[in-house]
């Protein structure tokens, strides 16, 4: 290209053919790693404790596959609830209403501070606390006793054991914890949007809910979506925690159960690794494309917004805009 521009009349010089730098360190590393890999393969093949036949017999058995489906269901449901909760919490956290902001802060503080495993076990044991879950005025019996009447203001109630079955308890634990993390992700996304956008919307007479929904959140998506993909991958792995609620039809529980029953503990753990690796690999591929998609078109548009002066003239700069 440059030869056209300069046009000095001199011919193109001969291309450079230099001797490349040698990297002896790389060869040492290759040898060391090859030896280690061979040792690993040797152990895997010769150590009888791996019980490979056991693994192959069980890894695709019906309860295990059902367990995997349960894990996927849990992931999807927990993420849907978690994302919805996260959006609500993030909006509350950034609300001018200090009560709402404080409430959201408390929620996030609690659910980010308590480990998911502890939450799962905790939710699994909520039945100890309440035989029935009831909705109504608080302290109604106590207040009634005060005035000597038999006041019962329970509006409706459900049996806690039916509501908090293992699956529901595990789902709630994961979803509510996810809500706290998603709240931070969404908050970061909202705050990444140029405040001038909200200002322009306000100047047009839009109110906060409308401008959040139509102007700010759509632009925040670019920042929100990639970490949400990561959260989903993490969630898939964390569904293994509900084995301790316990959720008996879940993948990890099933594999451990088979392992305990057949005294083939280790093969079943290896099977768990294979299952989770397979599932997260699929998600990671999705995540890769998600990130590509959401970083595209960002550059020129962002530059144009910030430095309108520098990017003013060329109308062709930002043509690869997604619709």
């Amino acid at each position: 290209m440059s030869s056209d521009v300069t046009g000095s009349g001199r011919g193109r010089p001969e291309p450079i053919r230099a001797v490349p730098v040698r990297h002896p360190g790389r060869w040492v590393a290759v040898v060391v790693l090859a030896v280690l890999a061979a040792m690993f393969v040797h152990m895997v093949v010769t150590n009888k404790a791996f019980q490979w036949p056991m693994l192959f017999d069980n890894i695709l058995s019906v309860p295990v596959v059902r367990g995997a489906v349960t894990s996927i269901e849990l992931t999807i449901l927990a993420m849907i609830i978690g994302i919805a909760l996260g959006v609500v919490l993030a909006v509350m956290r950034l609300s001018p209403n200090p009560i709402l902001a404080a409430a959201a802060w408390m929620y996030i503080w609690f659910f980010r501070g308590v480990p998911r495993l502890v939450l799962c076990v905790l939710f699994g044991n909520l039945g100890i606390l309440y035989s029935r879950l009831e909705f109504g005025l608080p302290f109604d019996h106590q207040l009634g006793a005060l005035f000597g009447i038999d006041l019962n203001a329970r509006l409706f109630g459900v049996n806690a054991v039916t509501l908090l079955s293992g699956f529901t308890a595990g789902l709630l634990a994961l979803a509510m914890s996810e809500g706290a993390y998603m709240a931070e992700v969404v908050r970061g996304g909202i705050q990444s949007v140029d405040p001038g956008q909200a200002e322009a919307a306000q100047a047009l007479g839009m109110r906060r809910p409308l401008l959040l929904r139509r102007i700010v959140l759509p632009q925040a998506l670019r920042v929100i979506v990639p970490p949400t993909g990561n959260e989903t991958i993490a969630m898939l792995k964390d569904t293994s925690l509900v084995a301790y609620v316990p959720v008996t039809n879940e993948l990890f529980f099933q594999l451990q159960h088979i392992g305990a029953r057949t005294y083939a503990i280790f093969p079943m753990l290896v099977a768990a690794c294979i299952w989770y690796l397979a599932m997260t690999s699929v998600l990671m591929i999705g995540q890769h494309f998600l990130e590509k998609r959401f970083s595209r078109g960002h550059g020129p548009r962002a530059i144009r917004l910030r430095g309108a002066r520098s990017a003013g003239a060329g109308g062709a700069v930002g043509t690869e805009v997604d619709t």
Partner: protein
Amino acid sequence: MSDEDAGGVAQAQVPADPDRYMVVADNVHKSYGRSQVLRGIDLAVAPGEVTCVLGPSGGGKSTFLRCINHLEKIDAGRIWVGGELVGYRQVGDRLHEMREKEVAAQRSRIGMVFQRFNLFPHLTAEQNLIEAPCRVRRIRRADARTRAGELLTRVGLGDRGGAYPAELSGGQQQRVAIARALAMDPELMLFDEPTSALDPELVGEVLQVMRDLAASGMTMVVVTHEIGFAREVADTVVFLDGGVVVESGPPSQVLENPQQERTKLFLSKVL
């Protein structure tokens, strides 16, 4: 009238009648923390008039403009737009803050154009124009699109309705931003340095749109450094510095024959 009498008692200067002017600012004060940005601004803009606000950087021009549509709350004084107190309701001799809904209704009648355009980047030019009319004014989509087409044609971009802001030049973006504000049929237009972020060769096209708008009878308050534009288009030029109006009057007076030292100094620097 009664609110005005109440206000008149406390002040030496009687403010302009808010019912006869599009904008009246009466002794407006505003501070950020301990720094006083506006220190008693008086201003009256008659319907159909163009007022250009000049002044050095940091003088409080943007802040004052943002107070007119209540993007900033003022600490003392009063602002009326179209005869209505901005941001507050007078009940007896007390002011009540307006709800967000009422403030939004007031803002929807005031168009604002920003230095950095602030177009919605995820929407096309046309979508930028119909978003607020459809969702705030609840105008039918088809009608809003027709109107958007007319407005884009008026700013010389009739064929670019489908373009995203990133696909438009700065001057084109600013013209879309003006059209977006006009789509709400405002009675007043505020401009905050609309050409300051533009390459010099793109300034003209935006000023031309503003000239046409002024000629069509729109009431405008324009913060600008374009002295030529002010001289040609403004009915009144206001020189604002240190949070006060140093000098105001017709351009022939303020620009050609300034009385105040600060005005003279500023004009000698920018001309």
